[in-house]
């Protein structure tokens, strides 16, 4: 396993190709008119000096040729194939919006990744995370003890400022279960306390779970549907066991896509709960006046909003993000294009965890995003996605953008108006 294919197995390859060829893929590979209109919709194409080999239809054609020549396919060709499907596409589905036929190149690439995986050829960082996720229940292999400790620690931190605030664990029948990205407990535990603060101020009835709390799903990016299904099931089972009405997904893009839109397909039935992204919940709170923000905090900053592909284009939350911004920023400038039409930052499709040569390509493909941000003149770039967040930070360094990259939660921590009576006093008061 890992980067190199040990042996090419044509039988397995053929079988996988057969299995994965659904009616849509077949139709798309047949009807693509090779019109070339997808070329400049792709950030890889634009960032690589309009290299025609970077255009979506070319990548799709490569996959088609591979399937058609499945018997003559060998290790060398597999290497070339692998570079294309992992190194030249983030499966952001922007090209699909611009294709007159609506051909979903992302699903063609996803199928190709399944083919590659059938030969054991997947980026080792992704594989390691997925194996860890399947074994431990989260992609960072955090033990349950560590997890609960982290939550308790964050609760204590939070209570220093807001004595009444809690981080409930396994509260059955709560309004919603909050699920996070495993990097939060591992590297950014403050993300959890910030979320808890928002929920507390909004008076939410919420809980976290001991199990199935990591909503990320890197198996989806490997075309490993069996693995992705198991991972999604962990979250689903936790939510259904706790009998919550909703599952709120942290500020993470692919997690929303996988839980809300892909996993009901993998798991064969609808969830017994609603899936909501943080931006939608935050927008709801602001709209209803359940939390209030002090706009003056960022009055001296110019903000822009990076639409994560899997939140806006593939998650349908483009307007929610913009609604929050109205309560938060005095000086807001949109990138062009934006919303559902936004360019991928280059960090999607599993790119962030992938190291080595993939990192160089990721930074190069981010040129389009860097230029978009530069054109806004923004000092703050807000993004509700962990992958975008990392990529934008890297891009800020690489292209000297001089921007602060912030999630909504980070901005809320500074801008939330906390009623005096809730703030810490000399004597602590008890809450339920």
């Amino acid at each position, binding site marked *: 396993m890992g980067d190199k294919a040990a042996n090419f197995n044509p039988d397995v390859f053929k079988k996988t190709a057969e299995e994965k060829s659904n009616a849509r893929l077949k*139709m798309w590979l047949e009807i693509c008119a090779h019109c070339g209109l997808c070329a400049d919709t792709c950030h890889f194409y634009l960032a690589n000096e309009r290299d025609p080999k970077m255009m979506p239809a070319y990548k799709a054609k490569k996959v088609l040729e591979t399937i058609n020549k499945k018997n003559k396919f060998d290790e060398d060709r597999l290497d070339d194939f692998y570079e294309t499907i992992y190194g030249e596409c983030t499966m952001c589905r922007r090209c699909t919006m611009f294709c007159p036929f609506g051909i979903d190149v992302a699903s063609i690439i996803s199928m190709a990744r399944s083919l590659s995986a059938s030969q054991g050829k997947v980026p080792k960082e992704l594989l390691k995370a997925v194996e860890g996720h399947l074994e431990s229940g989260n992609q960072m292999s955090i033990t349950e003890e560590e997890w609960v400790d982290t939550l308790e620690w964050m609760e204590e931190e939070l209570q220093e400022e807001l004595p009444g605030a809690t981080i409930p664990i396994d509260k059955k029948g709560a309004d919603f279960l909050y699920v996070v990205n495993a990097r939060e407990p591992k590297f950014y535990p403050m993300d959890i306390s910030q979320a808890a603060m928002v929920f507390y101020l909004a008076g939410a009835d919420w809980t976290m779970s001991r199990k199935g709390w990591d909503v990320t799903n890197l198996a989806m990016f490997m075309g490993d549907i069996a693995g992705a299904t198991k991972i999604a099931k962990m979250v689903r089972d936790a939510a259904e066991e706790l009998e919550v009405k909703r599952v709120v997904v942290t500020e993470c893009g692919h997690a929303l896509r996988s839980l809300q839109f892909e996993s009901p397909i993998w798991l064969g039935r609808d969830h017994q709960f609603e899936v909501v992204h943080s931006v939608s919940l935050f927008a709801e709170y602001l709209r209803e006046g359940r939390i209030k923000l002090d706009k003056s905090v960022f009055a001296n900053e110019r903000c822009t909003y990076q639409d994560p592909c899997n939140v806006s284009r593939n*998650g349908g939350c483009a307007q929610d993000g913009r609604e929050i911004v109205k309560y938060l920023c005095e000086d807001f400038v949109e990138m062009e294009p934006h919303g*559902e039409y936004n360019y991928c930052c280059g960090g999607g499709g599993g790119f962030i965890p992938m190291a080595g040569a993939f990192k160089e390509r990721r930074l190069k493909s981010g040129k389009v995003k860097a230029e978009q941000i530069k054109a806004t003149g923004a000092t703050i770039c807000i993004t509700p996605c962990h992958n975008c967040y990392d990529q934008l930070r890297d891009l800020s360094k690489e292209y000297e953008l001089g921007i602060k990259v912030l999630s909504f939660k980070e901005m809320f921590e500074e801008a939330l108006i906390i009623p005096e009576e809730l703030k810490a006093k000399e004597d602590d008061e008890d809450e339920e």
Partner: protein
Amino acid sequence: MSLYELLRGPLLWVAFGVFFGGMALRVVLFFQLSMQKDKPIYRFFSWKWLWLSIFHWVIPLNETAKKNPVVTLVGFVFHICLIVTPLFLVAHGVLWYESWEISWWSLPESVTDYMTLIAIGSGLFFGIRRMVSPHVRIVTTAADYLLLVVTLAPFVTGYLAYHQYFDYQTIILLHMFFGELMLVVIPFTKLSHFLMFFFSRAVTGMEFGRRNAPSW
């Protein structure tokens, strides 16, 4: 049997048979396979998103049209001339009437004459674009050129026949032959997009639609 009778009779029936039968088979196979392997289409089926998706592309009401006005304009003109000219040509109308006594509207011959030229001209535009645009050239296969030739051949020969340039009797036979050839290849090539376009737009429209996002 004369060549004319062969092309007007049995071969025309073969062409119609392959065309209609082939496309019907394409549709049947799509449904058959999709019911097994593309369950999301049926689970998240939505007439609303299906029509919205088709509508925004059947008329140029999408971002691609805004971004590529020239290709969009030439593309629409090309497709309109391609479909409208043969269906509403006076001479074809006479043949429909002769064969089955069915008649419908027809366009003046001076109009269809220009439309033929426009179809040829815009087809050539796409052929040249294929050759000179690096990003189009790289995805171009021999089949793309061949299919363009097959598509334009009935129009070129039709134009020559109408004006009776060269040897009329030969040209008219070639015209019939190329028309039938085009019908025959449609179900087996990308030309099938004339119908599959609607299927593709529908499934993608619904897939974006269930995420409340537009696909245009």
